[in-house]
């Protein structure tokens, strides 16, 4: 939970928006390999995986048999038939793959315990990274992934992140984590780029302002309902496609939207708090947070698509907090 009076959190958010900030950002990492790895991932994932160049990655969702989102992740082609899936649900992904691997010569492993991960985000993040690494990364394209060194330590760097700013993610061996963190701190210091310590700032506040959601926001929606239709490639086969097409043809019943509440704070609004239109439940908030760039209490919600278009006035939670439906992106 974040409050507008929290000056520490505000300073951390401001640093990322105006200069740079860094933090430990360890995701689950599933390594996929084998002769059919690419074909398998193309079947399991909604976005087009076949043809992804070596050293590049793609954001994608993964669906269940109902055509609803069970995960969203970035799939990186690491070369040599090896893929990295960066997700927050590694064990879930492995179990899901176990259930659907028949007919594919593929292997996969949750390698989360082997790799630590840091994120450097903000307009000056490329300068921090170039000061940190043996070779520059400022020319990387989005989701491009390369190998570099921090001093003598081998690391893997991609251009990406979850703040809506220019940013980079750095993977290092777990045993090198402390040394790498010290090196990032040293490289960041000349740019007044602090280490962020407030989880909610970099997990919720900064991303939400830019319209970036977590899987917990999207879970159970179709990619179309989640405003991710751009990632759906109906000219290829993928798991859940048939149900997704049917649901799409029937018309989306739910909408993924933004909400702004008009009260000072949102202590009475938890995840999945019920949203009412004229006293009738019409959806739920998936999460709320304070956005320091926009200086508002903002949230994501899943609502009845027909009854709750943008501009609808609603209330949220047990104390009837007044709110308005808005586009799910604030800056």
């Amino acid at each position: 939970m974040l409050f507008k009076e929290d000056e520490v959190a505000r300073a951390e958010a401001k640093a990322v928006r105006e200069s740079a900030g860094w933090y430990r950002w360890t995701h689950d990492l599933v390594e996929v390999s084998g002769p059919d790895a690419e074909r398998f991932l193309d079947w399991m994932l909604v976005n087009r995986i076949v043809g992804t160049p070596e050293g590049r990655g793609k954001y994608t969702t993964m669906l269940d048999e109902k055509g609803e989102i069970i995960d969203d992740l970035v799939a990186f082609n690491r070369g040599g038939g090896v893929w990295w899936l960066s997700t927050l649900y590694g064990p879930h992904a492995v179990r899901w793959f176990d259930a659907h691997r028949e007919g594919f010569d593929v292997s996969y492993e949750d390698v989360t315990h082997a790799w630590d991960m840091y994120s450097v985000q903000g307009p000056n993040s490329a300068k921090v990274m170039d000061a940190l690494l043996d070779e520059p990364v400022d020319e990387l394209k989005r989701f491009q992934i390369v190998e570099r060194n921090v001093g003598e330590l081998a690391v893997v760097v991609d251009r990406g992140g979850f703040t809506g700013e220019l940013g980079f993610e750095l993977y290092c061996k777990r045993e090198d984590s402390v040394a790498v963190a010290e090196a990032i701190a040293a490289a960041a210091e000349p740019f007044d780029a602090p280490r962020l310590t407030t989880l909610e700032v970099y997990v919720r506040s900064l991303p939400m302002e830019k319209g970036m959601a977590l899987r917990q926001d999207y879970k159970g929606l179709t990619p179309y309902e989640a405003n991710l239709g751009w990632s759906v490639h109906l000219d290829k086969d993928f798991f859940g496609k048939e149900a997704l097409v049917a649901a799409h043809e029937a018309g989306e019943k739910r909408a993924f939207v933004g909400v702004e509440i008009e009260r000072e704070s949102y202590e009475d609004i938890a995840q999945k708090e019920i949203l009412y239109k004229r006293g009738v439940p019409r959806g739920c908030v998936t999460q709320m947070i304070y956005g320091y760039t926009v200086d508002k209490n903002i949230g994501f919600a899943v609502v009845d698509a027909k009854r709750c278009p943008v501009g609808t006035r609603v209330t949220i939670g047990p104390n009837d907090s007044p709110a308005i439906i808005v586009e799910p992106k604030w800056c």
Partner: protein
Amino acid sequence: MSRKTVHVICISVAPYKMNGCRTFYSTVCMLVSCVRGSQTGRQGPVRAASARLKEGEDMALLAHVDTHRGVETAFGKIIPEKEAYSYCLRTIAAFSANIFQVMRILNDSWEDRTEAITEIANMMNCAACAGGDDELFQYLDQFYDEWNIPELVKRAAWIGAIWGDYGVEAEDMAGRVIQFTENRVEKELDTCPWDIVGSEMCNMTTGMFTANFDIAAGGEHGAITNDVQLNMCEARGCGNPHCRVVAERLDHFNLDHQGWLDHRGAAHAPVHDTPPERRVKHGQGLRNGQYVQAFGEENSLEWQYNWVAQMGWVWSISFPLIAIRDMADNDDEFERILRIVFATAGKNSFIDFFAREGLRAWLDIPREIGDNDPRVMGAYIDAVLGCQLVPHEWEAFDADGVEIRVSQEDFEGRFEMAPLEEITMGYEAQWNGACHTLVSPEWSVWIAEDDDDYIINVGRKIDDRAL
């Protein structure tokens, strides 16, 4: 928003004769009530529970009806699931409050008894994952996976905060994580079913949270090894409007390690006090029909109900009892005091005439059943067992007496790994006391063994040395 007639889809039949037929059957079975339409407004259920019609069973209007669960009383009234859940929590808390009264009789030092139960709570929580490092990490990984706690939250250091959050939420404390940084976690709780137990418990819960920190840190089990000070700096059980639990890192705040009695200290950074208009009366489960933790993992109210009906007995009764029994000179002394305390609690439950009338209304006891009728007490016991999710069967239910059969394993082993014979001792004394004021002193309650079962009797009994 109109609420329609209740439609029974799946039924357990109450023993009392309705419409000329009588079937004896357990009333613990969940019953389904239905509300027309999916949107029933603030007071109505907003989310279908598990007992839906199966797909393809299109029964005209019923196919469009949401279904909800409940507990049926002896007279056919349905106690809604949320109400039954709340009552279950409160009965467990009341049992715990009685046990704590026993403790206070046995030991007149607040410090001694608080230290004892806090230490045992810490040890038992640590013991939950005792074993070698491999087992510990396996246990933690399973926990992280189950609750999808991502590594990016530095979970090894802050599992206590995350775990505590889910724990108290599941136990209906409307907790919210006010602050979650690398150096500090603050949680604020507006409601707590256990707020009647007393201050020792408020301190004791911090012992459990500390154990969670210790477990995650991989330190010496059962010892305070972590680098965090953990304070319940406000507690509803002590009269504060909130419970407020704050964990602060020793190095960041320049703090010392705590002892067992140090957990009620003040926070070392300013706290956030939620204004009254944004406090909540109920936890997520009751508000929204489900619990969702910070990272979006969802559990239904049904899951939460089952979890609490087991674990509530473990942490709030079983763990402290280990220390409390040690405070008595011997088992006889402990059990003598326990029976006296529970008998008194029972008598006081229905001393007020309006309490008796309230119970009759709650259970829908018909007027043809008079005040001096054992079925009133039998129906009450049945409702307690039903709401506590304890399977039981009727053996007799008439004006001559009531007999309820329950397996000893179900009655005492609410959590099968930690059976409590004190449940039988306590409830026998409490219900007997309650019977004397709810019905009359002509009627008594006693629990008899029958092979692997208990028979809970409400009958006439003359005891020249009655408590």
